[in-house]
């Protein structure tokens, strides 16, 4: 289909032409382009304003607060007028007992969740993929996706009710088996595993979607050829299915690197208690407590900023690695 040359009167063309044949000065080009495209800029304005105020606003404020000494009583004016104190807030964090505690808790919990939460959906997807009965397959998928839609408050509520010593499912079973009821949720020896288990429970079903989609794209002829060669189901899974989805696996794993500092703020906040702080206090929960509960605005902001910078570095690394593997990256 050939298009006639766009008439010069197409001022309001939905496909703005950035360059016109004649090239006058820069500023007059800018004015012309603004005039021609004003509708687009106007349309984008509400969204851009949101990002300016509610995303960049806290970034600017955060940098100010972290390098000053602000308490809630200083008000907003204090954020502007108080003197800068350099890296004092950061120094205090690095020197404190909490630094290694919250950093190691963050990384350990994150690593545990990765170690168990990452392979789980791959295994479940492989299992579901081997099911030939469509109804059974769909039932398993429907039920396993369900926890994805439950709020963290509800999931935490379920965990509490399953683990409570007052007739919780787990303790009922323990008692039935002749054991003693135990308060698992407040026991530091169990707490991290409860977090890991909860995460796997909530995410494993949903995590199978991408893998199952990748498996559905595998050429059936590969399996037919393998059967002729005498490969059994297990061998087919190992030599065809798994290699065919390895690209998706590697890619998702790389993107998890960028997420390493997010150990699950809401989940931990909803489940932890002072008796398990030693094993569960992560950077985010520490920022929340020191900032909003103990009102140490500047200190908490500095801790948050430390995390934000580290997280950005991780995301950039993840993206660079993903590019290496031939993917376009996140953007």
């Amino acid at each position, binding site marked *: 289909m050939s298009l006639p040359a766009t008439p010069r009167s197409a001022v309001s063309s*939905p496909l703005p032409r950035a360059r016109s044949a004649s090239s006058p000065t820069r500023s007059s080009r800018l004015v012309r382009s603004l005039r021609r495209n004003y509708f687009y*800029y106007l349309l984008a304005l509400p969204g851009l304003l949101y990002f300016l105020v*509610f995303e960049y606003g806290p970034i600017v404020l955060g940098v100010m607060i972290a390098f000053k000494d602000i308490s809630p009583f200083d008000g907003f004016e204090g954020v502007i007028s108080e003197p800068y104190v350099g890296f004092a807030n950061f120094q205090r964090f690095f020197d404190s007992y909490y630094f290694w505690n919250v950093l190691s808790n963050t990384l350990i919990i994150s690593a545990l969740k990765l170690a168990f939460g990452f392979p789980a959906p791959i295994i479940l997807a492989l299992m579901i993929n081997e099911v030939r009965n469509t109804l059974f397959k769909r039932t398993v998928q429907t039920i*396993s996706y369900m926890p994805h839609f439950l709020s963290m*408050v509800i999931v935490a509520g379920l965990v509490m009710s399953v683990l409570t010593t007052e007739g919780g499912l787990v303790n009922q079973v323990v008692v039935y088996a002749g054991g003693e009821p135990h308060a698992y949720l407040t026991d530091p020896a169990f707490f991290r595993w409860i977090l890991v288990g909860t995460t796997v429970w909530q995410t494993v079903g949903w995590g199978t979607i*991408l893998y199952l989609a990748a498996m559905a794209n595998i050429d059936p002829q590969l399996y037919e050829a393998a059967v002729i060669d005498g490969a059994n189901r297990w061998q087919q899974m190992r030599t065809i299915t798994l290699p065919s989805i390895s690209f998706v696996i590697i890619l998702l794993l790389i993107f998890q690197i960028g997420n390493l500092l997010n150990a699950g703020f809401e989940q931990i906040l909803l489940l932890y208690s002072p008796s398990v702080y030693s094993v569960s206090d992560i950077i985010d929960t520490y920022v929340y407590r020191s900032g*909003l509960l103990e009102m140490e605005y500047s200190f908490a*902001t500095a801790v948050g900023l430390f995390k*934000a910078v580290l997280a950005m570095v991780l995301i950039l690394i993840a993206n660079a690695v993903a590019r290496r593997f031939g993917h376009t990256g996140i953007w």
Partner: protein
Amino acid sequence: MRLSRGERIFQVVNYVLLILITLVFIVPLITVVATSFVSQEEYARRGALILFPESPDIEAYKLLLARGSIVLHAYGITFLRVGVGTFLNLLLTTTLAFVLSRRELPGRVPLTFFVFFTMLFSGGLIPMFVLYDRLGLLNSFWAMITNNLVNPWYLLIMRTFFMQFPRELEEAAAIDGAGPARVLWQIVLPLSKPSIATIGLFYAVWHWNAWFDAAIFIRDWDKMPMQVILRGILTQGMIQDPNSPIEADILPPAPTLRAAMIVISTVPILLVYPFLQKYFVRGALVGSLKG
């Protein structure tokens, strides 16, 4: 084709394991539903963990959903939040995504970077709190609306979707004299309905489940959404509402109340679940594979 013995064992083991895994997902939910119907009398006799209550008792539901109860009120707030929030989410996301999808718009690249930088870096909790305080959003319904008003990730998905449109379609409309507003309204939007619906559902479920923003920004009971009330009931037992004194003679047992509250806040999600599943699965695939 006959299955070999090994294959049959493989199949049986696989099915049995999958059934067990499926049980792990639903048994906690079933016990909650069952517990929500246990009466005080039965609780005293048999404990809270009962799969089949002898005489199902709806006292907990009657109490929680009594006329003028705080739970019912919070339900209303949540519905309002989902409605108003999702509408504004979609409005701003769609318009910005449409603009950023125009390949030849001057300034598109820096504007896109302006948006996506926020996926990389954020100011954190305290500066956000200070900002909301300054803007008068503390203890305001609108704090729940402005939080995550435009999700950059969804914006990216939508922009990519708009960019895949055949250009001939829009060019033809432009030749027929349609301005950009008409192109958006009469061509792009109607063709994007399924994508917009998917992103809208993502936003709606997020609003329905959101707890933390309301927990830190909202102070008055009568402005709190359901998740906050749910959390209160789960951790502190019954919420004492000064406006509606409890009239029941015998309070249902605490585990029953908690379970009933979980059921009440989950049922709407379950009602639209088949619908959610269909659109969410598609959204998850679009968002992750075409990024």
